[in-house]
């Protein structure tokens, strides 16, 4: 029971990370096309300025929870995905520095340089994070010690010899790119006004078309690449609630976008992301990292979890901690709520 509880906690923390830092990344992806001049670019940055760091912390907090609740999964996946994980870390460094240093100097070399770094880092992060999820679905060649190591690429085919990037995981990476671009554009739409807002809404709408198309393609391809998915849904049809939520979110976002109900459109996008992530997790459950070598070597909730004592004492500190976090986030988002304006508070 405890391992399942912690599995859900880690999954939720990762989902919250994607929903929150996802809009920071999305804002980075779209900001150079939705903003026409320096003042508008500054507004886009302001819309994420006070919240991006806290949003990113969900990755660390989730990673920390993963570490103590599922040590073999943490150890195996991080060392097995060594190179792309290191690249993700470098990109996170560059993204963070770009946001924080951009406004330190006001000249025609400094600011555009960091804007391009911010954009490129955000794009690559969105693609890499999607590819990572693709690897979890496709599975990795775990050995008898539940360890593996994959090079960045081999022949781009998702077979036994796959690298981390094959055509399937790159496809999922592109899917993630469109999803986060739409998500970020919807956040910018919600937080801005006038011409900037109009452009952001148009970009969100265009991205939505990509998201819808990829949803169909990637779902079909995933079910054929990973038979476990089909088996899981067939065995427990109640699981279809997760993709249903995703579809509701996808439909909701375009409907609200057309009616210019920007807050609702953004929330629908959040629902879409949560629905998609939970669908994947449900599909591979109870595996946490499927093995495409020998299915018996998969890392599962049971064989990857820490001791009963560790998991239960963890709950004792986790619960008060998460309540505090909800408090901080509510406080921060409320204080910085409303449209960003040129002379208002913030970065």
């Amino acid at each position, binding site marked *: 029971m405890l391992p399942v509880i912690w599995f859900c906690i880690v999954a939720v923390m990762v989902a919250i990370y994607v929903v929150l830092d996802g809009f920071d990344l999305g804002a980075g992806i779209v900001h150079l096309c939705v903003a026409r001049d320096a003042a508008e670019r500054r507004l886009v940055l302001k819309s994420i*300025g*006070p*919240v991006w*760091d*806290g949003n*990113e*912390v969900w*990755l*660390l*907090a*989730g990673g*920390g*929870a993963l*570490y*103590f*609740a599922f*040590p073999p999964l*943490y*150890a*195996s*996946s*991080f*060392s*097995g995905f*060594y*190179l792309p994980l*290191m690249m993700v*870390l*470098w990109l*996170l*460094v*560059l993204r*963070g*520095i770009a946001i*924080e*240093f951009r406004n*330190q100097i006001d000249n025609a070399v400094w600011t555009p340089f960091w804007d391009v770094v911010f954009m490129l880092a955000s794009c690559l992060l969105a693609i890499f994070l999607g590819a990572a999820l693709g690897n979890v679905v496709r599975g990795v060649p775990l050995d008898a010690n539940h*360890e593996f*190591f994959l090079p960045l690429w081999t022949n781009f085919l998702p077979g036994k010899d796959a690298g981390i990037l094959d055509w399937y995981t790159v496809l999922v990476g592109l899917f993630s790119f469109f999803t986060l671009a739409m998500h970020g554009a919807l956040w910018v739409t919600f937080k801005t006004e006038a011409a900037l807002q109009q452009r952001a809404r148009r970009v969100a709408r265009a991205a939505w078309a990509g998201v819808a198309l990829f949803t169909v393609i990637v779902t079909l391809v995933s079910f054929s690449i990973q038979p476990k998915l089909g088996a899981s849904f067939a065995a427990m049809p109640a699981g279809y609630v997760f993709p249903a939520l995703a579809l509701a979110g996808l439909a909701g976002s375009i409907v609200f976008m057309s009616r210019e109900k920007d807050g609702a459109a953004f929330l629908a996008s959040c629902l879409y992301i949560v629905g998609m992530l939970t669908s994947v997790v449900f599909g591979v459950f109870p595996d946490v990292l499927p093995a495409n070598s020998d299915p018996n070597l998969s890392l599962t909730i049971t064989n990857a979890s*820490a*001791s009963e004592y*560790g998991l239960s*004492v*963890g709950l*004792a*500190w*986790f619960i008060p*901690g998460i309540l*505090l*976090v909800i408090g*901080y*986030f509510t406080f*921060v988002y409320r*204080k*910085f709520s409303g449209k960003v304006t040129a*002379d*208002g*508070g*913030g*970065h």
Partner: protein
Amino acid sequence: MDTALALHRFHFAFTVMFHYLFVQLTLGLGFLIFVLKTLALVKRDEHYNDCARFWARIFAVNFALGVVTGIPMEFQFGTNWSRFSRDAGGVIGQTLGMEGLYTFFLESAFLGFLLYGEKMLGRIGHWGSAVAVWIGSWLSAYLIVATDAWMQHPTGYRIAADGQILLTSWWSLIFNEWAAWQFVHTILGGVVTGSFAMAGIGAFYIFLKKSEASARVFLRVGVITGLIAAILVAFPTGDHQGKLVARYQGVTLAAMEGHFVTQPASPLAIIGQPDVNKGRLDNPATVPGALSFMIYGNWTKEVRGLGDFPRDTWPDNIPLLYYAFHIMVGLGTLFILLMGLSAIQLWRGKLAQTKILLWALVLFMPLPYIANTAGWMTAEMGRQPWIIFGLMRTAAGASPHVSSGNALFTLLGFMGLYTLLFLLGLFLIWRILGEGPERHAEAAA
């Protein structure tokens, strides 16, 4: 030593040492900004707020670099040290997990308010943000130190049949005796860095005849906290750390003191070069019996020398460990001296005219960074050849499938990226110093 292992060790050492350059200033400056904000509230003196605002700008650049260089650390336990993480993650994952949940959210939520929320929050609210950021950073330090303390002195665990290390007492992990002392010692090291930065910049502005009123505040706050921190970091906290090492890591104590031969009235080596093969110190200057006294309070009780311990338990680089330790202690002694003399002149109202001390304060600014780095090197190199003292050897903890080619690739990547970050950080802080405190006399929105 096998190349891959050496690279994994250097990879972690390099990235964590670079990260710690920013962390130590955050630990010290976060506290000092809190002090300035409190003085502003209590003395109802806006000038202290102007000073706080100036230092907050420097803090912002430094903190951002600390955050981005810290993210790779949490993941590096998994990427480069997967066997260690698989086996000990159930224990140290607890402290690292708590750090993420309790401290990073606190710091990140309130840093924005500290930097940009002065008007939005009002006087008390803004002061509260300074408290939150300071507490968040010190709490984070505690949890990291508790992690390292468990690796130095494992408690509250048992070994499962499959070799996994299982936590049996959360209390023992969090309130590990080693952790409490290591934490206070570490924090004070950071306060030394922050104090020397503040006092040094104060002296710098006195020389430039720039923002002299603020410069005097920086001198006063920097010297007073610097003196208190420099004394406490040596005694009682440094002293107690040494005693813990002597009690639980006798071989480490012998190695870092260059103490090869067990003898009554064991001498303390002030200087000397260790020759490990010959088992002696070259060119020594020693104080007879002083090592015995420092550890046991007794001039004659014998301290075990390296020769008493099996060779395969000796730290693998004794000269570097010895030098790191002696550099830390040597610098620490100089810090007490300089801050002591400065405090005397401050008390006599003459510090701003005492050119030689002002020069020393300016030139000493980089030295706490060296001392803090040397201190951590002492701790981590002293723990070798163990990654968990007495339980797991470092060689057994590295990721077995990450080749030296991959480790070198990412090490070079980090070195390049961090060189860029270092130059950027210096450049931006230099600009802020050039603008000076008056530029920030008005509250940011």
